[in-house]
């Protein structure tokens, strides 16, 4: 069986069981490993990708749910919000072990696409589904504010 979708702006047909979580289809069938496995039950956010531009947990989303739709992973992000978020993450050295950060960044990009200049409370609300065991939360907040500022300057 196969599932066809638009992955990082390219049409692909994956030879996978349609019930397989999108996470494993992306990681194993395509070989894009930036999207991470953390819990398998949508509790940690490490597997966050964008489906039609909105953040979803790919570990509980069957591959079939992405059929005919646009999926973006950390390897395929683009646009002003993505540039600002990744730039701010590097500028502030947010990462520690880094394992959760693909998911954090995907959630942050989605947030900045919705709200150009989020408050701390809005950041906390949008990012509380993403666990970081290293506890980089202080810098995640700071980097999202930094990214918002970078976009203001860019305009």
């Amino acid at each position, binding site marked *: 069986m196969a599932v066809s979708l638009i992955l990082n702006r390219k049409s692909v047909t994956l030879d*996978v*069981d349609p019930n*397989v*979580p999108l996470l*494993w289809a992306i*990681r*194993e069938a395509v*070989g*894009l*490993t*930036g*999207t*991470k*496995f*953390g*819990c*398998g*039950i949508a*509790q*940690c956010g*490490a597997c966050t990708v964008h489906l039609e531009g909105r953040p979803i947990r790919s570990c509980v989303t069957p591959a079939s749910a992405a059929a005919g739709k646009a999926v973006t*992973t*950390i*390897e395929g992000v683009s646009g002003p919000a993505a540039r600002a978020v*990744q730039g701010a*993450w*590097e500028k502030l*050295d*947010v*990462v*520690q*072990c*880094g*394992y*959760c*950060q*693909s998911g954090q*960044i995907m959630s942050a990009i989605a947030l900045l696409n919705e709200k150009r200049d989020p408050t701390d409370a809005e*950041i*906390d*609300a949008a*990012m*509380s*589904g*993403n*666990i*970081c*065991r*290293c*506890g*980089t*939360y*202080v*810098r*995640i*907040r700071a980097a999202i504010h930094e990214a918002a500022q970078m976009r203001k300057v860019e305009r």
Partner: protein
Amino acid sequence: MKNEYHAVEETSRRQFLKAGVVLAQGLVIGFYLPERGAALALQALEQPAVFAPNAFLRIRSDNTVTVISKHIEVGQGVYTGLATIVAEELDAAWSQVRVEGAPADDDLYKNLRIGMQVTCCSISITNSFEQHRQAGAMARAMLVAAAARRWQVSADEITVENGVVKHLRSSRQATFGSLARLAATMPAPARVTLKDPKNFKLIGAAHLPRVDSKGKTNGSAVYSIDVLLPQMVFASVERPPRFGAVPKNYDAAAAKAVQNVTEVVPVSGGVAVVAKSFSAALNGRTALKIEWDESKCETRGTPELLSEYRALLEQPGVVARRDGDTAAVLARAVRILTATYEFPYLAHVPVVPHSAVAKLSVDHCDIWACDAAPSALQSRAAHITGLRREQVEVHTVYGGGSFGGGGGGGDTAVEVAHAIGGRFPVKLIETREDTLRSDRFRPMYLHKLTAGLDANGNLIAWHHRIVGQSIFAGRPGGEVTKGIDITSVGGASNIAYDIPNILVELHSPANGIPVAAWRSVGDSHCAFAVETFLDDVAHAAGRDPLEFRRALLAKDPREKPILELVADARYRDSLFAKFPRDRQVLELAAVKAGWGTPLPTGRGRGIAVHYSFRTSVAHVAEVTVGSGGEIKVDRVVCAVDCGLPVNPDIIRAQAEGGVAFGLSSVLHERITVKAGAVEQSNYHDYRLLRIDEMPKVEVHIVQSSEPPMGIGEPVVPPVGPAVANAIFAAVGRRVRTLPFPTVA
């Protein structure tokens, strides 16, 4: 008193000097193992485009400087830190520096404090500092010699700055890359002069970008779970629900009938399902039927162990420390305070589940993992496969957090690869549930403290009794001495407070629940008990908690007559902070936090100070307690003295992360056991701190010229007590059973 650090420095210098080897091609230096160093250098001579002056450094003709890290990178910034040290003495440009994980090799890459290749105990920078400075300085000297030869000038006239070798008088300059070939043939210096620290440019720089930021920001950083090999198969292991159970027999037929499942093989302690995809392996596990032999398994649970521990708490234990005569003085004290504390089992739960990749052929085994002890993994893999150690190659990749867990999966991946006859490379992936339930936990501990005050409110006696499993019992090494596991009493037996009579005792009951180090080890619970109980004593004496601590830290604990303090010789010199560092960080945190200034009703400020991993840390926490007892930690002000700050921004990051880690444990984390099985399974029932609970963190680093010390762990212990003390200040209620998501 002889500083342990200087002993290391002397050893490494001595070894360094004797490590030079004369070859026909010239003098080359190998680090710590002459014959191996010679082999490395010869390799370099055969491929002259790579200048490999020692085990820690490669300079290639493309002008890259690659630092070989003997320690793993699990987030603490070790790759950046070690590279900073080498690059400083080399005078490299930071932008040309790369880092790679070292292969398994105890001789070349041993932790100088431990004697084997291992990343642990917040000592990566500490043990490497002098060694890596010398590695950089040696390479610099050889690059200078090469330039002097090429330009026919005196080496004294050559300078190196920001990756460029210059001869100012003749206006000539060269990159490291262009000199690499010639430098590889230069005689190694018999002696190198290290920089005066006042000339450091990279060490101590306010912000030197992490070497791993980009890859961890664009998804390209590779962890063992990301390693992809042609024809790779996926393994998932079913393990027993109860600790100590083993497979009696299993029926693989149904599992093998699952689509894409290729094999079902036994591994130590469980049964592995091998499949063409991870999802298929999981489906195979669901279909697998295993009968467990539970004859030797643990059948008790948390309630039974609590009863046992509570009984022990009332009985004298093995003495870990004795000053004066605590029992006699308590008997005549005007006022006695007593309190008991309960600390649960805790899990490591890095966001990456355990994973590793193994590829086996008749004469070679490759392992991709992030194991804290690569050479030990190499030995075990050789044992499993029947290969020789040197036929096993460990490729160290990034680790997705460790927190004392050490990184697992390598052994099992090799076992599965061996069991399937090496036909395919194997990627072992644990599920979150596997990693949580098969963890080795921070032990559960109970503490009882008793304090005696005299008529003037002076603290005259301190009795501290601890009950909990030893994590090092039965293992070689000096952790257990005279019946005391130093890691069970760390932060309790070595309190620096000037109390005339101190008695610390320990019970170490054994059971079948697997336990291990967890970020900050014994200090994780001892600091909580000591620092919150001391707060109780201060309040009982009518004293301000800050002033009370300052007064008790007025004297150097090293000068105090201590009748008994059980610790192996190698810990002796580091039991107490250099005086008066504890008091200084305490005062610094208090000043920066505005200690003593008023707060609104329902808010409180708490202070705690703790010395561990040779670093002193004080926190002031500000907490708001809601009408329903909800706890909101608003702000944590942190003061750190970890010696010379090599990478201040990484120290700051570790402090921020350490606050989160400490807070997570005291507010949410608890593993409970029922009839020998863990009751929690995933993040929904083993909760971790999330961003909406993260306080503001302000970090103040003491400028120090002392040798660099640990930072990964020592920030954690004082977090919980600072918060608990703030809760008491806010609403007058004491929390002594952890975790405490709310206060009653």
